[in-house]
């Protein structure tokens, strides 16, 4: 064997197969699973769940789901052998905050909005303005609406739990009719919220505990009519001697707006 052959043989030995699973860093996988209101199509990557559409939205066509996924993410989409870990229990219980999501297709602001929406418990709603305050952009209420409208994983990141301060439910990726059905299925006291909003109240407090809540908070909903008081704002409640509930965490509006302004000024 010549030196040359020896060297080229050694070079040929430097080849290597890509590690198993590398394809899943490129391609996403999809499954169809039962959801709260009909079947869902779910696509996920190695980072987590990336895309959710209802059976109804894609007219029950696998091809339509795949086409809409590719248009938005420009990745190959292959069938999955099984649903992503934890998806089944999360859908059954409505507790989805433990799931892993792939939000790489969303901006930082959109991701912050989505992460905030993920903290809203099942059966409760929060106004768009609350989400805006939580992400530190109290004036960006409209932008919050747009970010939620672009939610790639509706139902799992429960953007349907964000509603308008006037008590109406607002828009939804899958239509406001579906939003209403979802909230009713979670037994949200929508009628009561609307009634309070018409009277100008966005919070309720108990004069026995001195605690103020969002109207959909389970603690707030336990307050009997005789002890229940409506408040326009958390400031008004605080002025009346109430403190915010530690479970549903209503926040004073002015304080956080001021913080944003003060943020640019060194103290």
């Amino acid at each position, binding site marked *: 064997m010549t030196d040359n052959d020896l*060297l080229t043989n050694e070079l*040929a*030995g*430097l080849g290597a197969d890509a*590690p198993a699973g590398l394809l899943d860093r490129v391609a996403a996988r999809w499954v169809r699973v039962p959801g709260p209101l009909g079947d869902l199509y779910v696509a996920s990557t190695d980072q987590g769940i990336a895309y959710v559409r209802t059976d109804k939205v894609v007219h029950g066509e696998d091809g339509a789901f795949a086409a809409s996924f590719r248009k938005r993410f420009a*990745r190959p989409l292959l069938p999955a052998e099984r649903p992503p870990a934890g998806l089944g229990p999360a859908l059954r219980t409505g507790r989805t905050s433990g799931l892993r999501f792939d939000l790489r297709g969303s901006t930082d602001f959109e991701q912050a909005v989505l992460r905030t929406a993920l903290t809203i418990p099942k059966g409760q709603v929060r106004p768009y303005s609350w989400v805006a305050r939580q992400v530190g952009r109290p004036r960006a209420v409209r932008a919050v609406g747009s970010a939620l409208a672009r939610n790639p994983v509706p139902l799992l990141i429960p953007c349907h739990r964000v509603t308008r301060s006037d008590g109406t439910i607002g828009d939804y990726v899958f239509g406001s009719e579906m939003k209403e059905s979802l909230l009713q299925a979670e037994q949200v006291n929508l009628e009561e919220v609307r009634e309070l909003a018409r009277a100008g109240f966005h919070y309720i407090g108990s004069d026995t505990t001195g605690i103020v809540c969002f109207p959909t908070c389970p603690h707030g909903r336990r307050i009997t009519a005789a002890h229940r008081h409506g408040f326009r704002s958390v400031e008004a409640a605080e002025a009346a001697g109430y403190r915010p509930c530690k479970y549903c965490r209503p926040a004073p509006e002015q304080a956080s707006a001021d913080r944003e302004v003060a943020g640019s000024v060194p103290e």
Partner: protein
Amino acid sequence: MTEAETVGVATVDADDRVRHALVADLDGGFVVLYETYQRLVFSTALRLCGRWADAEDLTAEAFLRSYRALAGYEPARIGSLQPRAWLVTILLNVWRNTQRTAARRPQSAPLEAAPDPADPGEDVERAVELGETGRELAGMLRQLPEQQRIAVVLRHVADLPITEIASVFGSPEGTVKSHISRGLQRLRELQAPAESGAPKPARRINDPANPHGDA
């Protein structure tokens, strides 16, 4: 018949199968593309950048870009594709982009300057298989000038025929052959002192204070 032609005959069928699969169904065809060429792309990436984790990143990014490009191609264009040369061209672009990005970030050292055992994946999974010779040779490859390194890796590690390497380089076959032969010559020179004397770590051969590798 030259070696390159023999290799060509063996892989033309594979190329054809990939093209047909891609035209029939882009996503299903992409799996065929990946499975057929993952070794070609990963081996090339690994021997160019020298690190297992970086090679994984480069390979994943190259295949993702290839998918995005294919999504915009007409069937006729896919039908006339030279998949191997095309994939390697994408890989080289990704690699050069990451090098530029790395160069703009001074805190991360250039890949060539990385110490040998920087790669746990390589250490655990490949060290036994490759043996010491393989490790040393991989280190020597990284000491070649870029054109020679790419040409030698494509020809002798990735087993790509000269004609396709020429289309990757956009140069005449003669130029590619000369890159390869000069690269092999340099590798033999690098190997010589290590083989004649006592075994030494590959990276010490280029030690400026000790240019001939003498102890």
